[in-house]
């Protein structure tokens, strides 16, 4: 029987904000669908990360968050 994997992406499109991350053994974090809120969180965890900080310092959003390592969306 084929094994089913968890679905990726927005589980309820338009209702929830979703980011996905992959933490590598060397400590690198890859992020997909980086939202402003998640970028803010990652920035707080590591303020020296230039990949993240460049994405947090965008014009402020009033209602939603954003930020983290460039995603490999393709």
């Amino acid at each position, binding site marked *: 029987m084929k094994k089913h*994997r968890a*679905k*990726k*992406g*927005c589980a*309820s*499109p*338009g209702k929830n*904000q*979703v980011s*996905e991350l*992959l933490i*590598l053994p060397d400590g690198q974090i*890859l*992020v*997909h*669908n*980086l*939202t*402003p809120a998640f*970028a803010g969180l990652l920035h707080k965890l590591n303020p020296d990360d230039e990949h993240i900080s*460049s*994405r*947090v310092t*965008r*014009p*402020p*959003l*009033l*209602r*939603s968050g*954003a*930020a*983290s*390592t*460039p*995603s*490999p*969306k*393709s």
Partner: protein
Amino acid sequence: MICAEPIIQRRNASGRSAMARERARTARAMLADCRLCAHDCGVNRLAGENGLCHAGAEARFFCAQTEVSDELELIPTFAIALSGCDLRCDFCITGASSWNPRAGAGFDARAMAVKAEAALQNGARTIMVLGGEPTIHLPAALEFVSLLPETAKLVWKTNAHGSAQARELLDGMFDIWLADFKFGNDVCAQRLAKVSDYVRVVEENLRWANEHSELIVRHLLMPGHVECCWRPVAEWLAANLPDVKVNLRSGFWPAWQAARHAELRRTVSRPESTRAVDLALRLGLNLVP
């Protein structure tokens, strides 16, 4: 000599909405003999037939939210991901939704336009339509464009595997084409994405996009594919589109069915990433973050 008027009119300075509305109707009629992508299936999607993408007549979406992971000049972007795709990339990070045009929720262009406008008011810089592959849902995408403010900066995120007919309908609709150039040769394209004649089609689309809009080319660096895929892509860009913006992305992760291919069961190594960037710099590519 009498020159016939082109069937598809070019957009004037302030007429995007009206033009998009008209083209959405044209695009919908074209679903009766669908040749929107380069697979050129010719199936009647209005009658329930399915081509290689398996998409029906109605679009669905699996994600719509403001994001900041795209190119810095585009973010924050309100990104709308339409379900379904004409390619079958085994490593697709959204494979479950990208391979399934029935995934997600029904796409209501009017409701989505309201959300997009709200996102713009809340600080989003651009609105991005992507997939899966949005080209297979051109009628819905154009209807969506027709409902947006003329001043909204629109990004068309594509696999660059669309047809000439699709390009005509897209002319002048989006400010920026954000186009993937995934494979540097047809063997890798066939093996990893089940697509033939890939390189010729993508190169043709990239040339067109560069002439008709602003273009950013993306390459997702794949482990074990620096020489066979990135090198030819980089060399072609340097020779043919030397000033175009290029985003080399090294954040590959082994998603979806990547494990079917031994070399794709890992992330990109630091030496690979360094080698890829060095090549880009040697070729003088215009890399953007």
